[in-house]
């Protein structure tokens, strides 16, 4: 009973906060509703016994990705009049995208119903064996059966990361940086000099 109540609670909140994410006028509010949606999705995953995925969802999406979203969106200078001005102009394009997406969903569900794909049935055959923890089951699959795909994904991500760094990195010569190693290596003897100037002569540096 509590399971069903929890499911409907989380599911309703996911759908509702997802909808408000799109409908909210203020982008910061949108991101916050999105975070709520992520969080409730994690709740749903706990309910089906995928606690590892649920925790990863919270750590990665709520804890890192959404913080960066919020970080960027918070710095936007939001002009609500300008936001509304573009509405009429972009409305037909938006509708077009919406119609295409709707068609794709209908097609997808239709194809699935027609039995063209064998995605498996929810009969519990994919569940982990009793007594084997979630993490161990996933680990055995990822590092056993899907080892090549998993490592290929890792390499692709690495390349993407290096690419992003190379593209955005710029060498700046006009700023002064701190070289900590050089600072620590500096000794008093080479940094200071003792002079004894004559009265009224001053010091030549």
């Amino acid at each position: 009973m509590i399971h069903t109540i929890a499911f409907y609670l989380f599911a309703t909140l996911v759908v509702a906060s997802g909808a408000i994410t799109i409908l909210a006028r203020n982008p910061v509010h949108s991101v916050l509703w999105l975070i709520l949606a992520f969080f409730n999705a994690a709740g749903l995953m706990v309910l089906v016994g995928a606690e590892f995925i649920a925790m990863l969802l919270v750590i990665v999406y709520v804890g890192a990705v959404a913080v960066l979203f919020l970080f960027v969106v918070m710095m936007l200078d939001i002009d609500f009049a300008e936001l509304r001005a573009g509405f009429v102009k972009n409305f037909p394009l938006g509708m077009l995208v919406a119609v295409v997406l709707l068609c794709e969903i209908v097609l997808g569900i239709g194809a699935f119903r027609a039995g063209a794909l064998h995605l498996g049935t929810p009969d519990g055959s994919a569940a982990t064996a009793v007594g084997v923890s979630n993490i161990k089951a996933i680990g055995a699959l990822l590092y056993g059966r899907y080892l090549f795909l998993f490592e290929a994904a890792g390499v692709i991500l690495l390349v993407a990361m290096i690419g992003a760094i190379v593209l955005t990195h710029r060498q700046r010569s006009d700023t002064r940086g701190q070289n900590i190693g050089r600072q620590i290596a500096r000794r008093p003897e080479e940094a200071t000099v003792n002079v004894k100037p004559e009265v009224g002569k001053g010091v030549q540096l």
Partner: protein
Amino acid sequence: MTAFFQSLGMSYEWAWFVSTIAGILLIALPLMLGVAMIIYADRKIWAAMALRRGPNVVGPFGLLQSFADGLKVFLQETIVPSASNKVLFLIAPIITFTVALMAWAVIPFNSGAVLADINVGLLYVLAISSLGVYGVVIAGWASNSKYPFFSAMRASAQMISYEVSIGFILICVVLWAGSFNLNEIVADQKGHVFGILNGYAFNPLLFPMWVMFLISGMAETARAPFDLTEAESELVAGYQTEYSSMAFALYWLGEYANVLLMCTLNAVLFFGGYLPPLDLPFLYVVPGFVWLLLKILFFFFVFSWVKATVPRYRYDQLMRLGWKVFLPVSLGFVVLVSGYLMFTRYG
């Protein structure tokens, strides 16, 4: 505890429900009291290191100072700035406070004495502590004021940076324990080194991890010397600038609850949690939670000590330490530890 309530004639569901609520209260109420006393202890230690007396007026030795402060704050007026985003402005301290309490659900206080004995305990702690940043960021944005906003920017960058290295450090611990469950991690530390020392910190491979965890913990909880989010010389009071009354008190309590949580994690992950420091039979006469409490207090003393003695980092130094020192070193240790275990345990 469920069995006890069942013996009172409740059905299993109700007994589970009542025992969970009782467990939450059993953790949260002493924690609140502990936070009040730890604030007092923090001020006393800080004062002693600055050769001052610290709070000594309210109650014997000033012990009731925190309660007097709490009462004062409670009676103040809550001021909500007119230009702020009111709902978010009031939600932010609640988030900080709630999140600070949530992580305690998986902390083992004694062998088996844990509210939620889940498989992914450590990941849960990581997930919850990553939520802590929202209280600060939302406060900074909703205040609609310059200094809180700067503070929110700093907080989000700082907490994300140090979470990465904390994640790698925890992976080393998890690799060694072979489990994410905190209870099993503590049990695995029994007689870890030479069969007599309880705790991963005595292990030469994990000792550097513990040092980094302690420092990252200070950065993660925005304690001095990494308290750039509320650097009073630059940002007035950071994200708390616009807060008053109970909203401010919630930040205060949440912050110290987070510091206590970090101390507890140090004790649980690296110093054997509820186990005595030495694996000698007569030391087990003392109940486990006493050992845990002593370790928490010790680490809190270390936190206060550092706060009283170390000057604040500059922001670029903080970022450098996180990304250029801790991240590569902890990543290297993940390779080292897993290689060592592969060689000795699974090879």
